[in-house]
């Protein structure tokens, strides 16, 4: 009989334990630098800032688990953002806002579908394909709204930063996000996606509709980027065709920090949520440590590299 591995071994083999450890360290450092860190208002405002990246990272996590990658998510965020703002402004009123949101989500899903079809259907290489589509999508965003501007009704960001049925709105969103991940995590689709990501050939030979599953993962990512984009005017109150760029590689970093293997089929999607929070806390710490502006990107890069290097203590993937 094989002895059950000890606690340390099990922790080391768990994809998510590194993310949890990093998060604890960062929260401690953050709390030391930021006096009122544990005040509910401050925690909520942190969550408000982190939420979009968390959502995009979750979308990226589904794609990565399926053995692909999407470098167009930032561009999709930009496109959805300007579509929502422009339509809401042209149509006007509450109806216009909802029409804009619907159109935005539809645009995000459509972008994901195109990516998926090109990668899984036409079998183009994922990095290059999504990089190319990101140029097209970014161009579309600039066509829809050439300059940052426009405004949504105040009710939009008041709702986002406010309380609904006795709970902070962002907390509800986070709850729904985590709940949805849990729900999808128990579905057959998720098992199939993991199989496709871990061993595409094997999955195909088992009779799984590999192309459809991979396309689906890209559609989910497009949808998540779109939903994330809906929250951003909730923070900034305006549209900006270039705002999404930072999200693309941020989402990949979040996925890796969350313990998900870029080679596919290994890790928990929930890890991406933690990864997004890790990046958010790192930015917070840099801000509150009063690091001069021009040094911020160096410090940020070094901290993230250190966080990634901590991965030596856990197994990235069996074999």
């Amino acid at each position: 009989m094989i002895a059950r591995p000890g606690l340390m071994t099990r922790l080391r083999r768990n994809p998510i334990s590194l993310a949890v450890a990093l998060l604890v360290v960062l929260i401690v450092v953050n709390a030391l630098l930021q006096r009122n860190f544990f005040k509910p208002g401050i925690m909520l405002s942190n969550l408000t800032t982190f939420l979009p990246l968390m959502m995009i990272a979750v979308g990226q996590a589904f794609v990565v688990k399926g053995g692909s990658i999407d470098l167009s998510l930032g561009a999709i965020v930009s496109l959805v953002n300007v579509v929502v703002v422009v339509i809401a402004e042209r149509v006007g009123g509450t109806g216009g806002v909802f029409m804009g949101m619907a159109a935005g989500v539809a645009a995000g899903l459509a972008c994901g579908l195109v990516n998926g079809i090109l990668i899984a259907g036409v079998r183009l290489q994922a990095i290059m394909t999504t990089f190319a589509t990101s140029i097209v999508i970014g161009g579309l965003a600039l066509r829809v709204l050439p300059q940052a501007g426009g405004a949504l009704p105040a009710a939009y960001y008041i709702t986002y930063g406010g309380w609904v049925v006795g709970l902070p709105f962002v907390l509800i969103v986070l709850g729904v996000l985590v709940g949805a991940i849990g729900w999808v995590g128990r579905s057959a689709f998720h098992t199939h996606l993991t199989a496709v990501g871990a061993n595409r050939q094997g999955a195909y030979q088992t009779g799984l509709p590999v192309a459809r599953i991979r396309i689906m993962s890209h559609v989910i990512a497009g949808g998540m980027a779109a939903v994330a984009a809906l929250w951003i005017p909730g923070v900034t109150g305006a549209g900006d065709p270039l705002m999404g760029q930072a999200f693309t590689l941020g989402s990949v970093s979040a996925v890796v920090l969350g313990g998900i293997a870029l080679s596919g089929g290994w890790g928990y999607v929930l890890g991406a949520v933690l990864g997004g929070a890790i990046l958010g806390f790192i930015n917070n710490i840099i801000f509150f440590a009063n690091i001069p502006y021009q040094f911020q990107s160096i410090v940020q890069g070094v901290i993230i590299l250190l966080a990634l290097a901590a991965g030596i203590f856990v197994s990235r993937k069996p074999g």
Partner: protein
Amino acid sequence: MTDVMSRTRVLLAENPVLAIVIGTLLMLAADEAIAPGFASARQISGQLTVAAILGIVAAGQGLVILSGREGIDLSVASVMSLAALTVGNVMGGDNALTLPALGVSLAVGVSARMFNGLGVAVLRIPPLVMTLRTAGVITGLLVVLTQGQTSGAASPLLQGFIGQPFLLGLPGILWVWVVLIAGIHLMLTSTRFGFNLYAVGSNDLAAELSGVRVRWTRIVTYGLSGLFSGFGGFCLLGYTGTVSVGASEQYILPSVIAVVIGRAWSWW
């Protein structure tokens, strides 16, 4: 008829180089049709000079991609800028310092990329994020040092090497490009390191078990690719005369695309 078509397809699929040559000629013909004079010898030589810098950088990218395990290097641009800025300031437009500056550019490229190799091979950080973050750090450093200004100057010798005819009417950089291609080909097909690289790239566990020093091979590969980025930065400086931090941004993804089009791609 269909028989001819399917046979052509197989031929092209088996000979990517042939496909690329045909594709290039077709595009050249299209360019000539749209803008007459495009296919003139002078213009082609100019185009090749621009392509040579990308070609040199892409050669390094190709080695990294060959080394497998999702190998990719997104720090090419920052390493190029780092090399170009260092060299430009070392050289300061002085012909006599051109050769020492070349040495400096290669050393800068190799050491920056070796660092990536260490992160990837020893710390097992996925190359995509590792190289992206080192790129961020290097760029941040350069922004601080240069304050975002252009800085450094290429010597007339270097500029002539890139821009003036050297042999048979073609600039020196094109000849270096040809020599580098031949060198890489020889290295990959007939040296121990080349075989090890393919072994590591296709199955690193099997390579490890057959006695290949997998980590070392990977680190050397990243360092070697840095040689090409450093040299690319050196040439970029010669091409533009002076360089700023963002000058090499345009090489990041095209270097990967060049590799994909050249079919050295085996993963994802």
